[in-house]
């Protein structure tokens, strides 16, 4: 008996040792990296070069190095700070918060978490924020690709980025009817870190697109002198751009130390590449967002006086819906969303509109799919016969959706409507779910939608 026990034990130890040895051979998984925007690359080639021509592969390295120098990696985010303490990018995004959101997932005894983006968002939005995380193909609509800098549900008008409050709201409340979850259990600090990380990925993604758009104009010249860039540390590089910027502001500073000619040339390059393309064209757009919020004018008094919108407003809204505002074009005469159903959103149109691409024939865009584009799927206009509003159900939310449109989608803004007319359309939209499909008028049951508070919460 003891013998057998001994044999058992010794054999087990040997076997376990062997297994441990085999497993120790497993490589530690490499950290994920930012994925290059190959779709934009291919698009720029098709827009600017002959059918069989391609950009020199050196450009890829130059773009990547520049991006890494300025923005770091998924594990170690970085921000250029060329304007010192006043740097607008550093005021927009806090590096401390980025560090909380970036990196691999971990937490400590006290419950503090790191790697929030990878824990909560990356499997849908992708490590790069390209909206092509592993789950993407299984979801409709696709997760947001942040790199275009477009957002649907916000308080600001088209072409203006959302406010932090808008992003917090989307993360906290989720988007009904889509895969975007409501993160109700996260502490405030973590949500704010995620908001900053979303802005970071967005600006990084916009900047990469901006750089790629430069390639056709270079005609073989390098985008940036890599050797000089690598020789100087990041600090030098950003200080270089900084020097350029200060010079510009101070009208040619005098206390600049003498720099080697190479460094001088690099600084000049960086002044355009960073100072202009990044700060002036992209970061600037993000400043003063709070001032650009679309104010929602008070609704006409009698509109809000009853639980359900009064008939005359509903009737006025219906006329606009079918007439001047032409909502019927997409949402259909029934409002079921069965009007124009073959439109694509901007994230798809971005490459789908490239000459030579025909959505009906897959061969014409196979190269885009291979570059990582998600297959085109039409956006469906919303079914307005059900009282569900992804951007919020308060009248003020619906007002903003109609007045500003929904960025990135066919849903247009309505500049031609007066505020009063927009309110009338809101009244009709709110009444639609309770209107009989045929006939109309009398069939309104007096049920309020999402309360009659103008601005929910």
């Amino acid at each position, binding site marked *: 008996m003891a013998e*057998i026990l001994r044999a*058992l034990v010794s*054999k*087990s130890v040997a*076997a*376990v040792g062997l*297994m441990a040895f085999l*497993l*120790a051979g*497993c490589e*530690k*998984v490499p950290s*994920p*990296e930012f*994925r290059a925007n190959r779709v934009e690359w291919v698009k720029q080639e098709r827009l600017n070069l002959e059918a069989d021509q391609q950009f020199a592969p050196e450009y890829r390295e130059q773009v990547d190095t520049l991006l890494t120098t300025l923005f770091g990696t998924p594990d170690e985010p970085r921000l250029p700070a060329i304007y010192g303490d006043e740097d607008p990018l550093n005021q927009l995004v806090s590096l401390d918060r980025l560090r909380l959101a970036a990196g*691999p*997932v*971990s*937490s*400590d*005894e*006290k*419950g503090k*978490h790191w790697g929030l983006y*990878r*824990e*909560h968002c*990356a*499997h849908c939005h*992708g*490590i790069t924020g390209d909206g*092509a*995380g*592993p*789950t*993407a*193909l*299984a*979801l*409709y609509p696709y997760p947001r690709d942040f790199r275009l800098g477009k957002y649907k549900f916000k308080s600001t008008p088209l072409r203006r980025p959302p406010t932090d409050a808008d992003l917090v709201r989307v993360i906290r*409340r*989720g*988007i*009904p*009817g*889509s*895969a975007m*979850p*409501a*993160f*109700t*259990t*996260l502490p405030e600090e973590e949500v704010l870190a995620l908001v900053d990380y979303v802005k970071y990925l967005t600006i990084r993604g916009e900047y990469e697109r901006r750089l790629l758009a430069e390639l056709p104009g270079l005609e073989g010249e390098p985008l940036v002198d890599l050797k000089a860039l690598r020789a100087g540390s990041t600090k030098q590089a950003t200080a270089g751009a900084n020097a350029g910027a200060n010079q510009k502001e101070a009208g040619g500073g005098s206390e600049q130390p003498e720099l080697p000619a190479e460094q001088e040339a690099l600084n000049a390059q960086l002044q355009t590449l960073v100072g202009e393309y990044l700060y002036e064209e992209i970061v600037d757009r993000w400043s003063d967002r709070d001032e650009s919020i679309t104010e929602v004018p008070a609704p006409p008094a009698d509109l809000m006086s009853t639980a359900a919108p009064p008939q005359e407003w509903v009737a006025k809204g219906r006329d606009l819906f079918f007439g001047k505002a032409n909502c019927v074009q997409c949402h259909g005469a029934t409002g*079921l969303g069965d009007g124009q159903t073959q439109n694509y959103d901007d994230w798809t149109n971005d490459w789908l509109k490239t000459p030579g691409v025909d959505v009906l024939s897959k061969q014409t865009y196979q190269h885009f799919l291979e570059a990582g584009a998600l297959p085109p799927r039409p956006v469906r206009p919303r*079914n307005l*016969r*059900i*009282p*569900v509003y992804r951007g919020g159900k308060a009248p003020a939310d619906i007002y903003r959706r109609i007045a500003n449109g929904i960025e990135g989608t066919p849903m247009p803004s309505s500049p031609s409507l007066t505020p009063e007319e927009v309110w009338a359309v809101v009244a009709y939209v709110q009444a639609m*779910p309770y209107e009989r499909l045929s006939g109309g008028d009398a069939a309104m049951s007096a049920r309020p939608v999402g309360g009659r508070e103008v601005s929910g919460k």
Partner: protein
Amino acid sequence: MSVIERTQQPVKRKERAVLAEQPAEEAVPGYSPWPWRVGALLVTVVFPLIWFGGLVTSSDAGMAVPDWPGTYGYNMFLYPFSSWFFGPWDFFLEHGHRLIGSTAGLVAIGLVATCIRCDQRRWVWWLSGGLLLLVIFQGLLGGLRVVIDARTIAKLHGCVGPAFFASAAAFCVVLSRWWRDQGIQASRSASAGRAPLALGPAERQVWRGAHLWLALSFTQLVIGAFLRHVGVDGSPQGFQHLVYTHVALACIVLGGTHLYAGRVRRLPGVEPRIRSAARWLSALVTLQFLLGLSTWIVKYNWPSWLDSWTWTAQFVIPEKTMWQTNIVTLHVAIGSAIVACWAVLTVRCWRVFGLAEKAAAGAELSAERAERWQIGQGTTG
């Protein structure tokens, strides 16, 4: 689980029936219930362990304790109880998972000792040793997963856990009084010259089918584990294929299990324990299918073609709430229970049909010899 739990009581009742023909002391060698008891304890410890493990994955808490085998520098068992129990949720899960895991290891050691002490069957000793090996391996995988944080290991850890659970459950069948009684019954029938259980094509189908469905259910579990551990930089195409395969196999397993249970039900004179396991399986698989759909909904929302209903269109995914986490974990846990159930059923088939096969083969042998090889499995300790 409950299949296992119920092993004790009805056996006693049946034993009385079997033994009514002859005085018990004479022919029945001693049977020690201890190995079975320790085995059942092991199964009882491992099920919550799987639950905890599922919660660890769902909450992404795997890295809440960065070191291993220690816990923040403490010996795992000495880590202050209150800072763990009342600590953050992730930490509670990960450390708790390690505590239950170590307990399972200790029980597995106890099982080997008990088997060697109380059971004479050598092959049972070896099996118990194999089980111990498996649990050590699983613990090692868990530890390595923390130390080198590799996805492959996380996946392997996610598949070996249920495999261990199923093996432990199946092993309990071997240790049960029922197992022994089957042998006694068969040898009595043989010595009394009664015809053994007929082993027709229908029986053989049930016997073989158990293996097939055990394998397919485990495959389904492995695909599920891959779904759960897909990396953040995994390809969308890969994930989509996994989903399609998981759903297709779910339909096959669902249909197959019900057909199988139907076949077992129609089998005349089938051993009640095989029938009850099959019944459990059709219930569990149906539940599991619904849980799978629910898992999808609470993680990725309703399919978009259902968005003309207010009820589905307004649904917002309740991320990282108890709701979401527990539905997903229930799906994971029931998945393990299904595999364990198939394993138990398979072992029961081996016993019942295996004996019948031997009896048929040994019909020409003398009753005396038949007596020897069947009773020989009893114990004296």
